[in-house]
C-alpha cells in the first residue's frame, strides 16, 4: 500500500452512464474503506455490473469521477489495473487449459517470478490440487468459480471486485466462496461485491449499499440499514431448521463427493 491511509480504497463521485436512451447510472456516489467488504445490493438491471465495469476500466463513464487507491479510472487506468482484480459474473477461465495452466498463465501475465509455485499454492488453498491437471471444461460450476477467484488473487491486488460471485452455485460452493471473501478481508484486501441475495450481503459485508434504478438508495452498516424500518414487534415462532440446514445436513458438507462427481 503506497497511498496515504486517509485515501479510501474506492471513491465514486456522481458517476453517470447511459446506453443510447437508457440511463443506467444516474449519479452514483460511494466510498469504500480500505480492507473492508462492501456489498452492492440490487435487482437485475440496477446497474451493478455497469458500475463494476467502469471501476475496472472496461467501460468509460459519461460523467463523474471514480478513483481506486487515489488513481482515477479514466486517466490513470494502468495504475488502476495494477491495483485491482476483477472476477466477473461468469467464471472467466480458459476451458481448454488445465486449472494449473490457467493459474500459471495469469501469474506470467502479472510478471510474477515463480508462476509454477504460485499456481501450486493457490491450487492447494482452493482445494483444486487433485483436479489441477484436468481441462477446466470438465470442472463443476463450483470448481470453476474457485479457480476463477484463485486467478483473481495472483499478484495480490489491493482491491478485488466480485460481480455476483455466488450466482448459480450450489449451497456448499457458496459457503466456500463466502469463506474465501472473509479470508481476503482478514488479509487486508478491499472487496467490492455485488449480489442479488440479501443474506449474502448480510453475512459478508461491513457496509451495504442498495443500488436501484441507477442511484444509491441507502448506504450503511447492516444495523444502520435496519434502523430505516421501525423496530419489529417481537413475535414468538418455533425455530425451524432452514431448508439450507436440511440440505447441507443430508448431502454432507464434504467437498470430496463433489469433486469426483464432476
Amino acid at each position: 500500500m503506497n497511498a496515504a491511509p486517509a485515501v479510501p480504497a474506492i471513491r465514486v463521485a456522481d458517476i453517470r452512464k447511459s446506453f443510447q436512451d437508457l440511463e443506467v447510472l444516474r449519479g452514483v456516489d460511494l466510498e469504500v474503506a480500505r480492507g473492508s467488504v462492501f456489498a452492492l445490493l440490487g435487482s437485475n438491471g440496477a446497474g451493478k455490473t455497469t458500475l463494476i465495469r467502469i471501476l475496472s476500466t472496461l467501460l468509460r463513464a459519461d460523467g463523474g469521477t471514480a478513483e481506486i487507491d487515489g488513481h482515477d479510472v479514466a486517466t490513470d487506468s494502468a495504475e488502476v489495473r495494477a491495483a485491482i482484480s476483477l472476477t466477473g459474473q461468469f467464471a472467466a477461465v480458459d476451458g481448454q487449459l488445465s486449472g494449473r495452466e490457467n493459474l500459471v498463465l495469469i501469474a506470467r501475465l502479472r510478471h510474477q517470478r515463480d508462476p509454477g509455485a504460485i499456481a501450486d499454492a493457490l491450487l492447494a488453498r482452493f482445494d483444486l490440487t487433485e483436479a489441477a491437471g484436468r481441462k477446466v471444461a470438465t470442472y463443476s460450476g463450483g470448481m470453476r468459480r474457485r479457480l476463477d477467484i484463485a486467478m483473481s488473487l495472483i499478484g495480490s491486488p489491493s482491491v478485488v471486485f466480485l460481480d455476483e460471485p455466488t450466482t448459480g452455485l450450489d449451497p456448499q460452493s457458496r459457503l466456500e466462496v463466502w469463506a474465501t471473501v472473509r479470508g481476503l478481508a482478514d488479509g487486508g484486501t478491499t472487496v467490492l461485491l455485488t449480489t442479488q441475495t440479501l443474506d449474502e450481503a448480510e453475512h459478508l459485508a461491513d457496509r451495504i449499499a442498495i443500488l436501484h434504478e441507477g442511484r444509491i438508495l441507502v448506504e450503511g452498516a447492516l444495523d444502520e440499514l435496519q434502523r430505516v424500518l421501525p423496530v419489529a414487534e417481537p413475535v414468538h415462532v418455533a425455530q425451524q431448521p432452514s431448508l439450507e440446514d436440511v440440505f447441507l445436513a443430508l448431502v454432507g458438507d464434504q467437498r470430496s463427493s463433489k469433486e469426483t462427481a464432476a
Partner: protein
Amino acid sequence: MTATAMSVPGAPARTRFFADSAVLTGRSLRHILRSPDTIITTAIMPVAFMLLFVFVLGGAIDAGSDSYVRYQLPGILLITVASGISYTAYRLFLDMQSGIFERFQSMPIARSSVLWAHVLTSLVANLVSLVIVVGVALLIGFRSGAGVLAWLAVAGIMVLFTLALTWLAVIPGLTAKSVEGASAFSYPLIFLPLVSSAFVPTDSMPGPVRWFAEVQPVTPIVNTLRALLEERPVGGDIWIALAWVLGILVASILGTTAAYRRRIA
C-alpha cells in the same frame, strides 16, 4: 500472500508488450495443438478445390499454361488463408463470450497484446495449412523452377495477405453476436478467387464479370504469385497486389480500433 514478494517491479512498456504477447500467443497456440482438427479442416477444403480443379475441370480449361496444377495453385493458397482466418474470429469470439477477454483487459498488461496473440496464432496456423496444401500439390505433380528469392517473395506476400485478412477477421470476432456471425464473413472471401484470374483466364469471361474479376484484389495477387512460380517477371502486378494487401491491412487495423473503442466507451 507469497506473491507480493515475488512480483517484478514495472518493466518498460515495450518489453511488457512483447512478453505479454508471447505468453498469450503461447496460450492460443496450445488451443490449436489441443484441437489440431482446426488446421486439418482448414486445409481440407482448399485441397478438395484443388483436386476438383485439377482432375475434374482442369482438362476442359484452356489456361494457356503447360501445367494447370501450377496455374491454379496461387488461387488455392488464397482460399486456404480465407478459410483459415475464420478460426481467428471464432476463437476471439469465444474469448469474448467466456469473459476471459475482459479479464485480460482488466489486468496490468499491454492491452493490444491480447489481439496480437490471436493474430500471430493465425499466422502460424495458416502457414502450417499452406505447407500442407503445397505438399499435396507436390504429390499431384506441382513443380516449379523458382529460385530462393522468388519463393521468399511468395512467402512474404502470403504472410502479408494472412496478416491483412486476420486483422479483418478480428472485427467480427470483437463484434459478432453469435458463433455463426463470427465466421460467416469469410464465405465471400473464399468465393472471391473463383471470380478472378485464379482458375481461368479473365478474357474468357463476359464483360461485367471480366471487369469485376480484373479490378478485384485477388487477380493482381494471383498474377504476381503465378509469375513468381513460373519464373516470369512480375511486372506492375506486384505493386497493385501490395497496395491492395497493405490497404486491407491498414483499413482492418483501423476498423479493429474503432470496434474496440466502441466496446469500451
